[in-house]
């Protein structure tokens, strides 16, 4: 499992700091969601990328999580999220985030 682009994220975060920084994901598979969330919180679990062993501690959310989607302006939601929300099994995709939050509060 891979997150290419770890290097650029690491650079952005090195410059901007991590205060109030969150990741918002759009992946359509639960395994991808879990991999991104783990990498950004605790470091690259495959130990292959620039974030291997680097724990940025950044929390991840999915754009389709109900509490996130509810904050989006309605016309933007309609244009950008209505279709993906219907196409994906949202509960299945966001599942790993719930587990991760319980394990690493």
């Amino acid at each position, binding site marked *: *499992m*891979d997150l290419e682009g770890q290097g650029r994220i690491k650079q952005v975060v090195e410059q901007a700091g991590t205060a109030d920084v969150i990741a918002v994901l759009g992946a*359509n*598979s639960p*395994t*991808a969601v*879990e*991999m991104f969330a783990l990498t950004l919180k605790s470091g690259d679990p*495959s130990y*292959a990328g620039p974030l291997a062993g680097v724990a940025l501690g950044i929390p991840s959310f999915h754009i389709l999580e109900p509490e996130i989607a509810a904050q989006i302006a309605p016309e933007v939601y309609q*244009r*950008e999220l*209505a*279709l*993906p929300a*219907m*196409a*994906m099994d949202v509960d299945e995709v966001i599942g790993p985030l719930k587990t991760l939050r319980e394990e690493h509060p």
Partner: protein
Amino acid sequence: MAFPAVTAVANVLAHAPGLVCYGSKPVRDLRRDPALLDAVRARLRPYEEAVGYGPNQVYIGNLDPEALRALPRPWFRMPDRRAPSDGPFGDLISEPELLGLMRLCDRAGLMQLDAATLATARERLLRRGLVAAAEMDTPAPVRAEAIESMIRSGEGLPLRLEDRVVGSLARGHEEDEALTAHVLLENLAAKATGVLALRRLLTQVAGRLDPGDIPFVLAGSEEAVGDRYQRGGGNLAKAMAEDAGIGGAAGFDVKAFCASTLYAVFDAAALVHAGVFPRVLVVAGGSLAKLGMKYRAHLAKEMPILEDVLAGLAVLIERADGREPVVRLDTLGLHAVSSGSSQQALVEALVMGPLGKAGYRLTEVDRYATEMHNPEITEPAGSGDVPQGNYRLIAALGALKGEIPRDGVAEFIAAHGMPGYAPTQGHIASAVCYLAHALRAMRSGKMKRALFMAKGSLFLGRMTALSDGVSFLLEA
């Protein structure tokens, strides 16, 4: 006037386990950790397993895509040992044959190949009716010492069959980043697999057409042929035509990320429809960069490395004769700059666009060919089932528009979708790999119309944040 027809399609594969270490992901990882090579080599499949692999048999036409639903997963666990290495659409050639073809296509004299490999390639390709004896006798075999010397000097990349070094590929220039041995290997592999597809298609139409009857070739693949002053110069089409014996043809390349080949088919149809040419041949070679892309996941799951074949494809577009299925140029799906980057805008442009213009409901299209990437490759890597994801988007749009009931999504997908079978993601997976199957089904009266849709991730090139796509209906 009737729209131009698809009259022949060749789908070919080339087994390339020795080249997996030169795929983009493997090569970068191996640079950091050379010890990985043993682990990679341990998971490369022998030729017979690649031949017997269900999705590969689908690709060359011995099975329909729908047949994969009945084959128990994982498909790699039970290759069909009796499956032939050729099918109605084309061949799955062995690696020695691929190397021999690459040597045949090597006009700059960059490649060395030993006598044994050339002999094997010659014998097998002759048996397939894809080469003439004389042309296979032209490249001079090179002795092991000369090959070793080229590799030791640092100027050449080793070419291996299993654990033996059988040849090398040299860089084209001391300083030119666009002519490194690695770039040239990518380009030569694309050229050779495109030539393979062209040669196979020409045998398919040999009864009524000579190579001399082809005036124009359009290539849409994923390589970049050029030099330090123009890294993506292109026109691999003409180079492919030359080594496929299509001497009367001119041509050029179409470049649009993964949508390249489908755009080339539409472009060919437009040229024929405009009366510029009576027929145009479209060709795509394989992407070496994408070999082993998901290898990490395959190793972790103790699976064979499934991205070990290069795909090629060729399509003949001709003036309609009333019998063959036609490309509906009046109802294209196009995604304009201002269409916006939302998922809905893209799916609407590619699906509702053509259907709306043609006056069809979603359920009136027999099959949708989207990105038909083999899920057995992507699921272990956490990327899910790509064709299924695309079908869910189409069905969801149908539900949003009221054409499909919300609880009818699964049924719609089962009736109008298909399992994926293309060996790598990219241009070949993007709809065109289904043209051969659709042509067969339409000729036998089993299918009336299919929608072919391809997406291009333009944002990957960092010149725009836009996505892209193109689609058209093929209709009997």
